């Protein structure tokens, strides 16, 4: 099929960007979206033009590198997948596709479609861990039974890939879904309860300092999340935060 791509091009963080049109022909429906961009880049390269920069790595939907806003939606029109798992069969011959970087104050553009998501890392540095040193004599893994229900919920929250789609989808550029996923994972496990108070206070403080917006419960994050992280986690984080605030 033949497509028109309208792609955000920006030389670097300090230069103003703009949308540039590209025609691409003979795209196979079996291609992934990134295979298609590879094809475009090969063509640009052969014409002596600079290829479009975009983040990608594992190409199987788990590393969280790819981060494209496609036709206004993070990771494009399909559900529960990342951009690398989006296939061209989702589009029709003759379609025009807008491709932009994830937009948020806390995700400044580095170049073209590549953004800086190190703010996510800094939120994790503030409390996204259980303070246990490596040692060969931690208690036996089966010493503390965990209800299957809680373990499953903790796992569901822990499947967040840190791609930033939640932030890009949110009109407030809020990172509540991302932060609450980590807070929930540890809040649901006995191992994580010990530091629960400090964790939620520190992570929320860092989230605010990074310039992410607040949550107004529109739920766009949950719909666009490639891993289906539930809004329930935000509710749990709010409870944890309130309880931590009261305890002081």
């Amino acid at each position: 099929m033949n497509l028109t791509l309208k792609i955000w091009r920006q030389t670097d963080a300090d230069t103003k960007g703009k949308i540039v049109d590209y025609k691409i022909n003979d795209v196979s429906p079996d291609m992934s979206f990134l295979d298609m961009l590879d094809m475009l880049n090969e063509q640009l390269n052969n014409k002596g033009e600079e290829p479009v920069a975009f983040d990608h790595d594992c190409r199987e939907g788990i590393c969280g590198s790819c981060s494209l806003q496609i036709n206004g939606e993070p990771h494009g029109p399909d559900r529960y997948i990342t951009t690398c798992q989006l296939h061209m069969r989702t589009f029709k011959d003759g379609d025009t596709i807008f491709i932009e970087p994830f937009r948020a104050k806390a995700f400044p553009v580095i170049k073209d479609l590549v953004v800086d998501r190190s703010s996510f890392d800094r939120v994790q540095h503030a409390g996204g861990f259980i303070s246990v040193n490596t040692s060969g004599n931690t208690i036996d893994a089966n010493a503390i039974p965990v209800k299957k229900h809680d373990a499953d919920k903790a796992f569901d929250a822990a499947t967040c890939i840190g791609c930033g789609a939640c932030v890009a989808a949110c009109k407030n550029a809020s990172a509540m879904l991302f932060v609450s996923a980590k807070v929930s994972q540890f809040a649901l496990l006995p191992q994580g309860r010990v530091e629960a108070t400090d964790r939620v206070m520190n992570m929320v403080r860092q989230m605010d300092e990074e310039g992410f917006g607040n949550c107004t419960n529109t739920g766009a994050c949950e719909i666009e999340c490639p891993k289906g992280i539930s809004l329930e986690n935000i509710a749990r984080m709010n409870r944890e935060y309130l309880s931590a605030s009261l305890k002081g």
Partner: protein
Amino acid sequence: MATLDSKTPEGHISQKWTNHKNKINLVNPANKRNIDVIVVGTGLAGGSAAATLAELGYNVKAFCFQDSPRRAHSIAAQGGINAAKNYQGDGDSTHRLFYDTVKGGDYRSRESNVYRLAEVSTNIIDQCVAQGVPFAREYGGLLDNRSFGGVLVSRTFYAKGQTGQQLLLGAYSAMNRQIGRGKIKMYNRHEMLDLVIVDGKARGIIARNLVTGAIERHSAHAVVLGTGGYGNVFYLSTNAMGSNVTAAWKIHKKGAYFANPCYTQIHPTCIPVSGDHQSKLTLMSESLRNDGRIWVPAKLEDAKAIREGKLKPTDLKEEDRDYYLERRYPSFGNLVPRDVASRAAKERCDAGFGVNKTGEAVYLDFAAAIQRYGKEQARVKHLDENDAQLVKKLGTEVVANKYGNLFQMYEKIVDQNPYETPMMIYPAVHYTMGGIWVDYNLMTTIEGCYAIGEANFSDHGANRLGASALMQGLADGYFVLPYTIGHYLANDIRTGKISTDLPEFEKAENNVRSQIEHLMNSKGSKTVDHFHKRLGKIMWDKVGMARNEKGLNEAITEIAALRDEFYSDVRVPGTANGLNQELEKATTCC
């Protein structure tokens, strides 16, 4: 020329590690504060090593080319991690895990390292649970296990089909704690381009900041590589696009020996190649062989009809199917080791029984598992086990619960529903057992330079068993290297900071600069990917699953010619000052 001394400790194999730990040098906590360690790579091995070294008190500088350490390709490991916990009471033990791993590797691994690996395997599970890794649990609240290829016990711990992700995020969280404390200085979006050796010892690296293009010098008392394997030389593999073996190659060029490069794991259950546009292949976890049955049509004419689209696999009667693994290996059945499963698939496809357009695919069928689980559920729930529709629904739910994300991934890529029609799979390059040669302490032949995880060669021999890569990465990073590196660093307590103004740093930096200049000025006619694809084709055709003297000799000549062509005719657009992904790809080929 260096002599290869494995430094394996004396004594019975079961006592070697304990004796070694009791005898090696230690560095006292105050001195650790004056010692710097560079860790390149932040996957399971590098991430866990960086975190543990920082906990011990060393100053760690960690490097990754991704935008965050959490994205290292360990994250894509699906199935599980082995440990000799014997929670299932099925006869497992340290010795049995050791034995299975050595046997699975065709007796080509270093046995002392493997025994140590089996010994610390149980600590890994304890450590990960303490970190909050949400492993799968049973209703009683205790940890669940499953079985993997090449073994007769259930010793694999898992978190659905995302075990690698959960373990990596565990190591990442341990790193985050140390980054927050300032004990790890993290360098994201940095690619190591050379190793700096001063007086015969590894004392630093030259790295390119991928955002600004700056060439940076970083010094340390030791350099640790946890940078993964070399699967991407085949172009098409299950590796991430950025897993490009650059760091390991650079230290090899600086004198680190490379061992067993012939041992590349061709994983039996990958989604088959669909066309020339592909840049990577996707793995379907080996755990699927717990419940999936592998088959091809028993008759050549049926295989032909299926390839031409005239026959559907579900139309074929039981007696017309050849469950060739169950037929040939009755005791292991579908759970034979990976090398055996891959060779058997190739043998059937070469004989004309392949089932997709290219003739290079076999079936992995879940229909029997859906029936079995469905009936069991119907009985448990006191429902009618003869109601075919109900049984299918209940069975599908069980299978979805176990492998849901894998089935979804398959459906998105292939556009077929694996609950309704069997999956198609074919072997693909997945893991490299060979790698940088290391001694018992995991030191390479360059003093002070270490290689851990997939980057080294020692633990998996000629074939790695499933769920062993995660075990080795974390064993090396959490429990082995942090001890053994102290033995070396104990001699460095009075060295003081290593200056980056030393002539060795300048020379290494200039080399990197001139290489980049050459690439930028080459202004040839072909892209880096063009060369990489051609390299991959030579490798797969002549150094792939079947190899012979003639092909290998041809490959040597062809690769040498391709290399010359690369240097004279590659084109890298843009500039070197700033983010340039084409230059990144090109520097990995030098």
